[in-house]
């Protein structure tokens, strides 16, 4: 396990103690313990649950990137379908 500092919005900010503690004093960071071996882009901090969230937990980096691509494609497809439906609906008016 390792220490990581997140922004108040829950985004990764810094792994460095000097910088992180300074931001903590200013109320600009949240200190949390994170699992080892996880790249920072997969980490976030749920400010409501007060817990670290690992994207694609249990997968390695390649698996997480693949999961991200899958999620993005699904979101794009859903968006396209929504957009097409809205266009058809507006044309029917």
């Amino acid at each position, binding site marked *: 396990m390792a220490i990581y500092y997140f*922004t108040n919005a829950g985004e990764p*900010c810094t792994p460095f103690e000097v*910088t992180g503690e*300074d931001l903590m004093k200013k109320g600009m960071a949240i200190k949390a313990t994170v699992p080892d071996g996880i790249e920072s882009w997969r980490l976030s901090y749920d400010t409501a649950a007060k817990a670290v969230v690992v994207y694609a937990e249990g997968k390695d980096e390649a698996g997480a990137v693949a999961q991200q691509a899958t999620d993005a494609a699904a979101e794009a497809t859903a*968006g396209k379908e929504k957009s097409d439906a809205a*266009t058809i609906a507006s044309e029917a008016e």
Partner: protein
Amino acid sequence: MSNLSKLFGGGTVIDPRKEGLPLFGMWGGSSDQNTQMQFRVFDSNFRVTGSPWGSTCDTTTNYRFGILADASHAYAMKDHGTDFHSNLTTEGYSSWTNYIKSIYQVDQYPHCFHYTASRDGFVTWQSYHQFTSSFEYQVGWTKLNQVLPEGIRPRRTFTNRRFTMREFMGNSDCNCDFYDYSSHLLNTDQAYATGTGYNEKQKMLVMVHSGDESANTSKTIHIFRSSVCLNEGTKRIKDFFDNLESTEYFTDTWTNQCVKDWTVVVGNNGWVGFGNKQSNSKRYGVFDCNVKGTGVAITGASRQWTTWHDFAGSTTTSYGANSGHQYYTKFQTTWDGTWGMIYSPYYYYGVGINAFCMSIENPRKFININQTKSGRANPYIAWGRTGFHGGWSDNCDSEVWQTYAFAFDPKDSDHTIQTRVYKGSTSGDGAMPDNNSLVGGDFDNRTGVCSLDAMRTGLHGGTHTTNYPMLMGINWWGSYGSADQSYGGK
């Protein structure tokens, strides 16, 4: 440009290169590029400028190719596909569309990596057919990092490779000037120019020469001061070197993953910042390049301020010039030329940002800038008088377009005190809170990390439902002081 020599130092006469406050283009539309597409140009106050464009098209006259660009590609649209909102992970040349929103697209030069966009609302993509043979793709890293007066972007494109400086017109592939400066060098041990900065106020040129164009750590740094301005309209490169007032150098050994990432910021006080991308992180060091005398201070240790500084923010897998020379580390300045930014992506091929922002007056004053998105990128561009914005391209369905905007104090150049950064918010009440607190923060020199916050703009994305707006650089921001104060900055 031919009149510049008469205008430099001309009292109240405005340099014809001087532009108004920065504009930006915003491309929005449906994801298939065939129905509704819009390209609008906004000023730094988010007011629309130029002539509005809009179109409704079908597959054979798609907006991007059939209306605004190369009509021969209108039917098949094979080059960019249809996806404008990738997460920028494993993309290469075969999928341009996936990093057209990356931070590689825009630097301090008026031209952009992959497109041209005018303030009147015309946007066109460069031909994809030979793009991998183009200037910007292959040797954009040889461009000079220029420190210029307020409101001025580089209007002349100088490059430096081996012992030769050349001039190009924009990012075309044709030389219009050439000069081998090797006769002016006091040390020729390292033969590959791999990073060059120029300060117009000081007429000061600083070059990093390496042992190869790969990862060689041996360096010779050459420092030239001239009585002739390199950018002066009627002058040639040779004129700068023929009128040198001082020539010095120092040698050192600098760690680097790829020498093409070296970025050189020549400060107004003679201190020079050198930054590059190093693995997933970045490094920045500052050296005293003021005149010391011939044969004096010829080692890096005798000129360096403190030590090399590693990026203090969050890092993850990200690519620089070692993964392809087109991914070289970029440099920009604020409109007023008081703050600079050396930057590269936080994530893979161009999402988020890892940056050092430094005072141009005194490059020893610098902080770390952090934004950790792993999808929905956009370039960063100069914004307002003393700031930057960009980085956000999330779906604008039921949402306004947001941007990571931040600004500095133009008079703040003291490296012994904290750096103040002004930021925005995703709510008006957050941007203008019911208290006396600063919206932004004060950050320690060297180690302070400013994580960027998104702010709402009130601009919509350009279509009625799912869309992922693209922020684009504009090649001319309008003449400074024109009748419309939106452009004039005063």
